């Protein structure tokens, strides 16, 4: 690390600072200052009328005892628990495509397509697919299954939402894994073949360990996506319901801040989300640092 900072003359370093300054400035104005501001606001009963009173840690205490917030955290935990699947599935697909399945390029393109659609469009599509008289139920009826209100029943709504999120993001992960797979040397796979490794053993003992940095990267990106990019889907598909079945912290913050006119309380919830995110970011930095050392 210290080597890297010693490269270049003083003049070059000044230029580097010059180029980095705007980004830093934007970061301070649009990220750090609002963060501090929100932190301050989380100790007030601010509302959108503009009055604010200091209430100490009241908002935090309320949040901890707020069943809706508790549910949203529980939902987040469920969401995060699906993360391994959201990493493994694209990895396996990428490996199969890389193996040279006929039409692999076609699959790759098809998988990637959803990744370029906005969550509102994805939501609109799946509204049609998943609603009670939607195409999924029509399809299942062919096999004699009863219709299920996928988005309207609390037992399936979160699962449906997770499935849609998976559908709309895994193409990107497939692409990242495909890129990673091209860096796995062919000769060590051949050596493993000679050593007696069958297809699945080659995956398990050689390919997957070689992909470890990629797996960690995709895991971080997926986690960040789950924590911050679900809003659009929730908004379009379920509105957080039924009840609190699909209410996520992000959505709740938006509700509290806008709809329920409690920016102070929303700010306190944001602080919780921020701490969660900071934990992920910390893990991410640790992982990337360790990979850089290998």
């Amino acid at each position, binding site marked *: 690390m210290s080597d890297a900072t010693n490269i270049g003359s003083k003049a070059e370093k000044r230029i580097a600072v010059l180029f980095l300054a705007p980004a830093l400035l934007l970061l301070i104005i649009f990220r750090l200052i609002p963060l501090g501001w929100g932190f301050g606001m989380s100790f007030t009963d601010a509302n959108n009328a503009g009055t604010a009173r200091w209430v100490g840690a009241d908002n935090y205490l309320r949040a901890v005892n707020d069943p809706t917030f508790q549910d949203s955290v529980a939902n987040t935990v469920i969401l995060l628990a699906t993360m391994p699947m959201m990493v493994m599935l694209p990895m396996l697909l990428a490996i199969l495509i890389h193996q040279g399945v006929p039409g692999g390029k076609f699959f790759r393109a098809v998988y990637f397509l959803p990744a370029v659609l906005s969550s509102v469009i994805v939501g609109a599509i799946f509204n049609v697919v998943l609603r009670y008289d939607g195409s999924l139920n029509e399809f299942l009826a062919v096999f004699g299954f009863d219709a299920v209100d996928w988005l309207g029943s609390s037992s399936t709504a979160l699962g449906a939402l997770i499935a849609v999120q998976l559908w709309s993001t895994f193409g990107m992960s497939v692409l990242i894994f495909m890129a990673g797979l091209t860096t796995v040397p062919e000769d060590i796979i*051949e050596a493993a073949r000679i050593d007696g490794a069958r297809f699945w053993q080659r995956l398990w003992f050689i390919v997957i360990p070689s992909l470890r940095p990629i797996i960690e990267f995709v895991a971080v990106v997926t986690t960040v996506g789950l924590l911050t990019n679900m809003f659009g889907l929730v908004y379009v598909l379920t509105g957080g319901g039924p009840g609190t079945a699909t209410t996520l912290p992000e959505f709740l913050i938006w509700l509290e801040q806008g709809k329920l006119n409690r920016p102070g309380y929303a700010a306190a919830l944001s602080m919780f989300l921020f701490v969660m995110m900071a934990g992920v970011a910390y893990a991410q930095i640790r992982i990337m640092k360790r990979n850089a050392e290998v």
Partner: protein
Amino acid sequence: MSNLTLKNLKKSYGAVEVIKGVDLAITPGEFVVFVGPSGCGKSTLLRMIAGLEVVTSGTIEIADRDVTQLEPYDRGIAMVFQSYALYPHMTVAENMGFALRLAGHAKPERRKAVEEAARILQIGHLLDRKPAQLSGGQRQRVAIGRSIVRQPDVFLFDEPLSNLDAELRVQTRIEIARLHQTLDTTMIYVTHDQTEAMTLADRIVVLRGGIIEQVGAPTDLYDDPDNAFVAGFIGSPAMNFLPCVAASANEVTVAGLTIALPQLQTQLRQGESMKMGIRPEHLNGTNGPSVAMKIDVVEQLGATAFVHGMLGGDLPLLVEARAMRPKAGDMINVPFDPQHVFLFDANGDRIR
């Protein structure tokens, strides 16, 4: 009995045929070297034997079993790659024991086999390191160790020394020879370096453009090449080739000098154009016919010197001079023994 038999083996990539019908029988314990210029198909042939390349036609038998369609791991072979191909996330011991682990051997048994191989290769102190913490030579040993542990019927080496520096290359070459003596297992070794081929092989297979040019013991290829390609490829520095014309049934004229070749069994047709080959080390006789050469460049090695010069102004000739200290610009007489002269026809085939 034969340990490995190739029958009319062919391989095409699309419309391009790169192995054009190879027949070869290798006896148990033999050290066979495939040698030839880059791109002649040595690696492809080796990889076909290993089962890493699909065979287009022909058969491969190992230990009297047709393995043409078998997976690599069912063929009883082990391979050492040019790039070593060590598993980067495993320690040396794990690398070496991987095949046994896959075969379901218990850990203590694996450890014993690994330690035994490590002892032979003197890498016992490296067993707990990762490949990234090893030097090139050490990685090479580990790669060889990994192949030993499996106790294969046939060892395959694909240019295993080409990533080592010159000194290490010579050392490792000797060690591979020693290993062959110790293990007494069939080894097939691919190289483009004729010195490696000469020093290691029981038998050399010279390949060019996907076909075998000649098979034989190193000294056979050196003393009695079948064609100009083999004659030029085997031996270092390479053989001199000079255009010549038949002067009678057993005499040729080269650079104005007519020499008798009593060893010829063939009757030459007078006036036929041919190529004459003679090795640089055979151009330092003391009597016999001689040609006069003007020296261009001298590569002085002390014990010997490689003298580059011109015959009659336009025929380049390389002479290995042992007992003299020639200088550039000098004219010297180069006597030679006609016994060492090879004749080749217009196609490059040997005239015996």
